[in-house]
């Protein structure tokens, strides 16, 4: 038993185990309610739906772990999809230039967010809240209130199509993209940059004294978050096309996913994998509510209770002295991140 816990602890780090347990629980309940959910094509459909949130959660993780927050991602996703639809306007040949334009816009938004926070010293909550409103308003102003145009089939490939194959029916591009993002983030967090990011979130002063340019690290985190939000926009736009509501409330869902993954607001703790698991859990919860035919009106309440309970439980776990540490070599040196996979 102790060995299992130790192994789990090494794998997922303090506080993060809760989210994996919750994820398993939710899946087990779904399995009992509706075994057909676990048929490969259904699972692939679930993954396709969940992929954008996973990508967003990774972006949000990078920002949260260095001690900040990014509230602008939902608006940014919406803005990017609306921009894409307006610029492409159904013309296949515009797909690639538009993707580049979106990337540039994403970088710009991230850069502004980052510099306002680090150079102008505006708290990230306010800075990105401002950006959220600016984007929301600017898009409404530009489009006269509702999106126009249409996405091309090429643009929609990533979010909607995949590689046709037996058993799975289709291996979605979205799955491959989300997996690539997670792997890249895991690798990044093991590199010096990732450790610096965590250090900046854990103890800004100490990081500064040891020669880290905290402002630079954080700005890069904001840029990465915005770029990933852009990617999420490509996936969401591809998945369901352009509607006036696209992106609404996603910043909230993404932060929920990250926090549910046991990543501590304020920075310094948590893993990419746990953030990803948080995103999957949130999506699985949505699925579970549908399976239970829970009235729409009560869903936010149930969701809120589950999230608070899970995060509180994780915090309690983290605060407890961990018994297996006595039997095992320490798994968590102060400044280093826990191994992630």
């Amino acid at each position, binding site marked *: 038993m102790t060995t299992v816990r130790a192994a789990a602890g090494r794998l997922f780090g303090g506080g993060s185990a809760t989210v994996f347990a919750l994820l398993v629980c939710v899946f087990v309940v779904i399995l009992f309610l*509706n075994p*057909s*959910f676990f*048929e490969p*094509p*259904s699972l692939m*459909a679930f993954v396709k*739906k969940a992929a*954008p949130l996973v990508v967003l959660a990774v972006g949000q993780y990078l920002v949260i772990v260095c*001690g900040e*927050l990014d*509230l602008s991602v*939902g608006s940014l996703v919406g803005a990017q999809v609306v921009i894409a639809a307006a610029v492409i*306007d*159904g013309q296949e040949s515009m797909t690639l230039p538009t993707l580049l334009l979106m990337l540039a816009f994403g970088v710009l938004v991230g850069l502004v967010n980052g510099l306002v926070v680090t150079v102008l010293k505006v*708290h990230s*909550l306010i800075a990105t*809240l401002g950006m*959220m409103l600016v984007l929301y308003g600017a898009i*409404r102003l530009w*489009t*006269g*209130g*509702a*999106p*126009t*145009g*249409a996405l091309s089939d090429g643009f929609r490939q990533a979010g*909607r199509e995949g590689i046709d194959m037996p058993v799975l*029916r289709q291996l979605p591009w979205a799955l491959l993209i989300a997996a690539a993002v997670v792997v890249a983030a895991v690798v990044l967090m093991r590199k010096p940059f990732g450790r610096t990011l965590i250090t900046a979130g854990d103890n800004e002063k100490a990081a500064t004294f040891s020669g880290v340019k905290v402002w630079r690290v954080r700005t890069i985190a904001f840029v990465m978050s915005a770029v990933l939000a852009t990617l999420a926009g490509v996936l*969401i736009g591809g*998945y*369901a*096309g*352009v*509607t*006036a*509501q*696209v992106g*609404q*409330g996603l*910043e*909230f869902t993404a*932060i*929920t996913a990250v926090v549910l993954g046991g990543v*501590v*607001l*304020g*920075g310094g703790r948590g893993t990419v994998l746990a953030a990803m698991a948080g995103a999957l859990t949130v999506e699985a919860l*949505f*699925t579970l509510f*549908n*399976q239970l*035919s829970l*009235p*729409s*009106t009560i869903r*936010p309440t149930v969701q809120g209770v589950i999230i608070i309970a899970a995060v509180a439980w994780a915090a309690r776990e983290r605060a407890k002295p961990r018994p297996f540490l006595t039997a095992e070599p320490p798994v968590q040196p102060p400044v280093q991140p826990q191994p992630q996979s």
Partner: protein
Amino acid sequence: MRRTLVAGLAVAALTVSACATDTPTEQAPGGEQPEQEQTADGEWFVRATYDKQLAQRDAKPEGPEDQPWLQAIEPEMVDTAEFKQDGKTLCFSNASVSNPWRVTGWITMQQQVDVLKASGDIGEFRVSDAGDDDNKQISDIQSFVDAGDCNAIIISPSTTATLTPAVEAACESGVPVIVFDRGVETDCMVTFIHPIGGYAYGADAAEFLVDKLEPGSKVLALRILPGVDVLEHRWAAAQEIFGASDIEVLGDEFTGGDGAKIKDLVTQYLQRGDVDGIWMDAGDGAVAAVEAFEDAGKDYPVMAGEDELSFMRKWKETGMTAIAPVYSNFQWRTPILAAVKIWKGEEVPKEWVLPQEPITDADRDEFLDRNKDMPSLHYAKFGGEDLPGFPQAWKDR
């Protein structure tokens, strides 16, 4: 300490953003949002109105046939001689332009105003947009009244109950008031302009499904949000009709009109079993629902969408069995024309009920052809084809 503070702020912000992003989309919210799992004869079902609206669908509207925005069903004309005047300042308090339906109508309205400005019937057109905020709209209306130089006030109310006192105050100022789209709980305005209504819309969709599907077929209902009268009426009518048929309603889900959510929901229903028909209370995101069937490799459902072009184009492209119920977008022209009539002292209907006819297989291609240059989030029955700005004004938005 700092961390606690950050966490506290974060929680506060999450709450704020959750509320802020929860604004309804298709239509503004009611003053309250009662918890609804309504059955027919529930809070949102008034049988007399239901019967009246269903009957109005068959009534022959009076007025020029090629200008449905000037037609009226069973009009009771009122005299407007007391408002006859030379003033030409028209004021318009708009609830919002927060969805494609309103954007389309708003363009049509401006084009109509341009025509009447050119002919000298309208001098100045003043507009305030409340952005779906009741309080903002109340003060918008009040400032029109206080300014004192509006010769007529057009109001498209954001919600019914909350805006009623503001509309009454506008009436009391002696200026002719015109209300359109959503209603208010007073009849002090000179004319109230609206299409037949939500029951007729919901019934058009439900009757089509009952007609086209075998008995015992399964229908999924997709709804925008609870608590808004025009949308609740659509669903109440559908429940009434489904209840009397052999159709099994698998469920009714709120989607917020969000394509991603719609696609996900429909996909999940398809995983659990067959879905033979889709009923929607508004067409936003209808294409996402159709795509869910495509991506799951299932046959197309029988579908009730709306006259939004993205859906109509998909309908034609796939050849599926479908109908496009219409909440007549051309109603945005009528208040402008009504104001000019009132200034001339001409009679207008007290309650100006505009025709509201669904688009079917029979006239689908005609409407698609008429709107072939229009963007996909445009509404086929926008009724602006004869305005000089057509088609450019609706294309460039």
